[in-house]
């Protein structure tokens, strides 16, 4: 028994390796994609009737390659496409191909494809779109929806990206070891950008899908580089953040701050996997920015209630992140943690030097206002909140600060509500 949903999942899972192998064969992205689509069509016809093949990837590669060659009218010089009836069982051809395509081969294929899609000649938005389309196989309309552009505009963006890759004469050869590690981080960065694209998407379904694709890409990267703790850390970070997806928005679609989220809604399974990956990465004792951010997310995930958050440890981790990747936004995040464990005065000392660089940043003024309020400097707090409202990125952010401002004006005792500032990369 082979149902449609199973076939779809199998095709999705096989896609990166199959397309990557076809790219190696044809050295052409469009041709490889078409070949894969042809193979999928044939799978949808043949598998329900004859059952799935033993090796899904090898079947798709073989059938896709033959179909494309047929299309190119060069089939005479190659193995002819088997009869439809024989498609169920390509045992001989399939096993021979499978033997040639060992795991290390697949590894290089997928890596090459990722490197091509994330080539430095492309701007970040095109890299993400290419990774989504070519590697993950997300249909064009859904990519367009996630990026809030029309399908035509997305189509054009991808066409331009492919033209650029052709013009840059990006080699389809397997990169050597040195180039691999250099560009691995570009690929990891694209995976994380993709995740953040989903994390901040307005449309709930698009959001979940992009985040899930980014995590899938992350798992592919772990399989390619099992010994690189930063890749494992990246995957952990994405899982721990995505685990909160169900609690991050209220019924009206407004953002709910971390401290106010209903932790019962957090996805415990994703958290468990994320925590396991953090532990696994940390064993290597080669800390990096993704691992540290994952460790911070892990501390939030481990706290059953917001009040149980280990802010002291979070402050230490932000300090470590600051050393590795200095940025005023990271310092601002550290200050939020410092305020929780050392008090508002220490935190204010940390952020005052950032005033110039973060002048136009909503969270800076929001945090600063809260700290000033804590210290009883109400007039300054009011001015900071007013600045924050002017810079709010969403009605929810503005409403949040407005509430604080109203409370301040009404001179009511403050409710001790926490501020959390998301790390913005």
């Amino acid at each position, binding site marked *: *028994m*082979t*149902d449609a*949903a*199973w076939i779809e*999942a*199998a095709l*999705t*899972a*096989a896609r990166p390796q199959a397309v990557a192998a076809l790219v190696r064969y044809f050295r052409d992205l469009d041709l490889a994609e078409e070949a894969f689509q042809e193979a999928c069509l044939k799978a949808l016809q043949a598998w329900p009737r004859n059952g*799935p093949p033993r*090796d*899904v990837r090898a079947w798709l590669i073989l059938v896709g390659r033959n179909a494309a060659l047929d299309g190119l009218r060069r089939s005479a010089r190659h193995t002819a496409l088997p009869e439809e009836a024989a498609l169920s069982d390509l045992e001989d051809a399939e096993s021979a191909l499978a033997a040639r395509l060992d*795991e290390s081969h697949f590894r290089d294929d997928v890596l090459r494809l990722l490197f091509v899609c994330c080539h430095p000649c492309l701007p970040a938005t095109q890299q993400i779109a290419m990774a989504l389309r070519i590697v993950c196989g997300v249909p064009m309309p859904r990519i367009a929806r996630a990026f809030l552009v029309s399908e035509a505009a997305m189509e054009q963006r991808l066409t331009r990206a492919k033209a650029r890759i052709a013009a840059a004469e990006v080699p389809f050869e397997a990169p050597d070891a040195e180039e691999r590690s250099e560009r691995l981080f570009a690929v990891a960065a694209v995976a994380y950008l993709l995740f953040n694209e989903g994390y901040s998407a307005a449309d709930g379904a698009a959001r*979940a899908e992009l985040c*899930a694709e980014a995590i*899938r890409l992350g*798992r592919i990267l*772990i*399989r390619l580089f*099992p*010994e690189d703790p930063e890749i*494992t850390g990246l*995957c952990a970070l994405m899982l721990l953040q995505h685990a909160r997806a169900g609690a991050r928005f209220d019924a009206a679609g407004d953002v709910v701050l971390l401290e106010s989220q209903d932790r019962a809604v957090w996805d415990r399974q994703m958290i*468990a*996997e994320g925590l*396991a*990956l953090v532990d*696994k990465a940390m*064993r*290597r004792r080669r800390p990096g920015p993704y691992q540290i951010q994952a460790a911070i997310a892990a501390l939030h995930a481990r706290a059953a209630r917001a009040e149980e958050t280990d802010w002291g440890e979070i402050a230490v981790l932000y300090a470590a992140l600051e050393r590795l990747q200095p940025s005023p936004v990271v310092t601002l995040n550290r200050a939020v943690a410092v305020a929780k464990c050392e008090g508002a005065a220490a935190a204010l000392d940390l952020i005052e030097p950032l005033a110039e660089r973060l002048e136009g940043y909503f969270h800076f003024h929001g945090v600063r206002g809260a700290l000033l309020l804590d210290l009883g400097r109400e007039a300054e707090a009011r001015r900071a909140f007013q600045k924050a409202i002017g810079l709010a990125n969403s009605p929810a952010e503005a409403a949040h600060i407005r509430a604080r401002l109203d409370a301040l004006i009404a001179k009511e005792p403050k409710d001790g509500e926490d501020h959390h500032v998301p790390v913005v990369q």
Partner: protein
Amino acid sequence: MLYAILCYHDEETVWSWDKEREASVMKGLGEVQARLAAAGKMGPSARLFPTTSAVTLRKHVEPPLVIDGPFAETKEQLLGLYVLDVADLDEALGAARELAAANPGGAYEIRPLALYNPDPRPAA
């Protein structure tokens, strides 16, 4: 007789399921498990995270070596297991067929248990 049903499948496929697919498979499996439990045949069961979360302790050397990743790179991975208390292999196969109908794809390895230690932790 205690039998283990070891569930093998391509983890990339299984972990690519969307929420609806995941929920419908779990519901189908839950129904089979409830039937087996009602007949007193269902022992403990477990589902494993993908091998990307695995480390392996190679113990052929001293001290043992910790390696990131699964023990072996295979097309299908061990994704979970059931323990069943059944009369014989036929009955174990019957249960496996029912589970397979609820969750097609991959393979079940059916193996008798040589030793069984129930969960020694105090009940919660």
